[in-house]
């Protein structure tokens, strides 16, 4: 029966694209995926490859011949890298909390008509998106606040992002006023409304903005290079930069005590550090993914 129907049905929009078009799209998508996946695969493979394989492959292995975890063992044996990893986690976690707290409160106040100084404060936020103060003024401000060599110097100067505040404000403006009015009638104050009504309704946008902040803190190295003299307080990305971009050799002490003649290949260690720096964000992302599309669209639809 259904076969007969198909025979007589005219070609229409329900048929979907032609086979050739589908093949073409598939090829393009596969190529695009390969462009992203192959370098990443190379990074992981090199991090677990042996010295001989790394040498024979010209420093970059696409598929290891055997599993060799020496690079990871060296890194996690307690040295500069391990401590820097801890510093990065503290900065990313602490910074994200501070940023989310500040940004949501600022965005909420800017989203409610009639708030004190709403317009000039909004202008200041927008101004900060368009114009950046520059390297030297930033440094002088941090110095004047006595934040040099403090982890707060890596959080406070970038704690509030104007872009994220605008995204949050747009989302908060979408919450019906009637919901907030009913809470007010029940006797809730502004902070209670914010904490018990607004934030629970905004989980999607909080997840997205939180991820933005977390990735920003996790990847930041430049401020640490400028503001932190005590190398014991350097975050992972700065250590990573020192070893990868400067192309310097890691010594055994940095890796926590492997004998110098037993060090894993230099390239493997560099790639292992890269993998370690990527993993936390990769772990967090799937948990936030379901909120991501909704949160991203918030800023796009309403401005």
């Amino acid at each position, binding site marked *: 029966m259904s076969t007969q129907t198909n025979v007589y049905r005219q070609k229409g929009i329900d048929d979907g694209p032609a086979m050739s078009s589908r093949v073409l799209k598939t090829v393009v998508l596969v190529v695009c995926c390969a462009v992203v996946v192959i370098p990443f695969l190379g990074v992981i493979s090199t991090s677990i490859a042996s010295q001989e394989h790394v040498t024979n492959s010209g420093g970059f292995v696409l598929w290891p011949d055997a599993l060799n975890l020496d690079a990871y063992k060296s890194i996690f044996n307690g040295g500069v890298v391990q401590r820097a990893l801890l510093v990065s986690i503290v900065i990313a976690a602490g910074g994200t909390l501070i940023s989310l707290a500040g940004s949501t409160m600022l965005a909420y106040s800017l989203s409610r008509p009639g708030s004190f100084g709403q317009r000039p404060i909004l202008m200041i936020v927008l101004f900060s998106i368009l114009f950046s103060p520059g390297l030297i003024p930033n440094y002088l401000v941090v110095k004047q606040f006595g934040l040099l060599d403090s982890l707060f110097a890596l959080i406070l100067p970038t704690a509030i992002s104007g872009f994220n505040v605008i995204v949050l404000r747009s989302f908060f403006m979408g919450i019906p006023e009637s919901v907030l009015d009913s809470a007010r009638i029940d006797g809730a104050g502004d902070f209670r409304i914010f904490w018990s009504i607004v934030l629970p309704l905004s989980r999607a946008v909080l997840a997205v903005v939180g991820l933005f902040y977390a990735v920003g803190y996790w990847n930041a190295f430049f401020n640490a290079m400028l503001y932190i003299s005590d*190398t014991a307080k350097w975050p992972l990305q700065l250590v990573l930069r020192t070893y990868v971009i400067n192309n310097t050799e890691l010594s055994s002490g*940095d890796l926590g005590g492997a004998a110098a003649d037993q060090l894993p290949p230099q390239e493997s260690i560099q790639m292992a550090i890269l993998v370690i720096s990527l993993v936390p964000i990769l772990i967090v992302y799937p948990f936030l993914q379901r909120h991501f599309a909704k949160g991203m669209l918030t800023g796009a639809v309403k401005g």
Partner: protein
Amino acid sequence: MMISRRSLLGGSLAAAAVGLTGCSTVTRSTDIAALNKPVALPTYKRFNGPKPDLPRSHPLMPDCFYRFPEHPTKVTSGVPGNGQTVTGTTLTSNPIPPTADRNPYWQELNRRLGAPLELNITAATDYPNKFATSVAGDTLGDLFNVDSGFAYLPQFLEARAQDLTEYLSGDAILEYPFLANAPQASWRGCVFSGGIRAVPIQRGIMSSNTLLVRQDLMDKFGVELGSLTVDSLQQAAKAVTDEKKNRWAFAVPPTAAVSAMLRLPNGWEVRDGKLVQSRELPEHKEMLAITRQMVKDGVIHPDGVAKNNQKVWFTQGSAVMTQDTYSSIQSFYRRATNEDFSISIPVPLAADGKVGRVLLGAPNNSIAAIRPSSPERTKTLLGILNWFAAPFGTEEYLFRKFGLPGRHYTLDGTDPVLTKDGGSEVCLGEFPIQYLADGPYPAYFPGHPEAVDTAYDHFKAILTTAITPPTYGLYSPTQSTKGKILDTRMDSLTKDIQLGRADLDSWDDAVADYRKSGADAIRDELEQALAIKGDK
């Protein structure tokens, strides 16, 4: 936050503006005569230390040692410091060492100095940014390595560095015998606005670029370089290249060797009473054509023009030849994993068959300055810098570069070999105080006396015709403010031409634009400076 070269220069200019605010007494940037005013240079008195294993055949020849002296002599008494903390800003090209509280080497260094040393250490590639912000924030400390690319450098040093002329000029330097062990060519780079305002981090000719060859691989493939002319180099390159085996002749374009073969000027050169820049000459274009052809022939590592990873490729054997400094030889031997690893340094020949003209590097790696201080404090800080400059073969040098026996190094014969703690705590023998002051750089490759012979024979052959940069120590305001941008533009086009992305003839237009955009102004200023110094 990523910083582009342009914004970096902006940062440098902004820092100069902030740093010089309120200093009405600095020299105007248009006053070339005042900026390049000469001063009586410190007297050179060669330190009577251990005798080199090979005789010096030329004033520029570094001391060549097969092995570390068996009984290093202690050449200082007491401690240079007075107990007061000494702060400083410096850089490193090695892993950052553990902080003083976790670093026995640093603790012993403080004890030997008689002063706690607090260093702000930054990775070399990030140093210009760090330096600019530290200038603006006035957080450089008592001693600081100077970023040579900093805009308005003479004015900055006038405002923020101690004038050391009365302490170091002429025979006054003899008070600091290890600083007096630096040749006058090095001190020329420390004179700004008629004063000695810094001390040199001398490297001599060891920082010059040269062609290094993996002789073990050449022998294995049965390829002879023979007389090193352009033709023989190209033939040998084709013979050793085997793309299928992941092996190329060169890690990077061999511009140092080709420049020597073509007898190019070392940057600027006086010809017929006028300065000419290497880029303006047809020989330079010929060099571009040769290296472009090499890329086309596939004898240069595919990433060799765009990416800087030649040390790894050369050590691993992906590249049979590379271009690096004489001082890098030691690090290659240290990285090498195969026992027959050996490096040769061929002597480039010109078309007439005579030795080519090798372009030597600047005599200094960089310079370091002292914060304006009282005369007593200045003398103390100079004493500390003098201690940092104790030469090779002394007990002070042995400690400075290798740390404490047992913990940081063990002896292989008389050669100190860093232990794993030494590698970390002494920063692979290059603790960052070496960028505040250092002794002369010897040709000493521990455990590889054959490499010393190779370098010595090479030096003997090339030094008769080699040239140092003739404008070193002269200051051009236009070079200071526009030089980086102009160089970046020309270097970028050089890569484009080598990679075949730009036509060779586009070089002519670029040179015309280069001259108009600042090179002619730089030429005028350098000519004025040369005339003032009596060199022209």
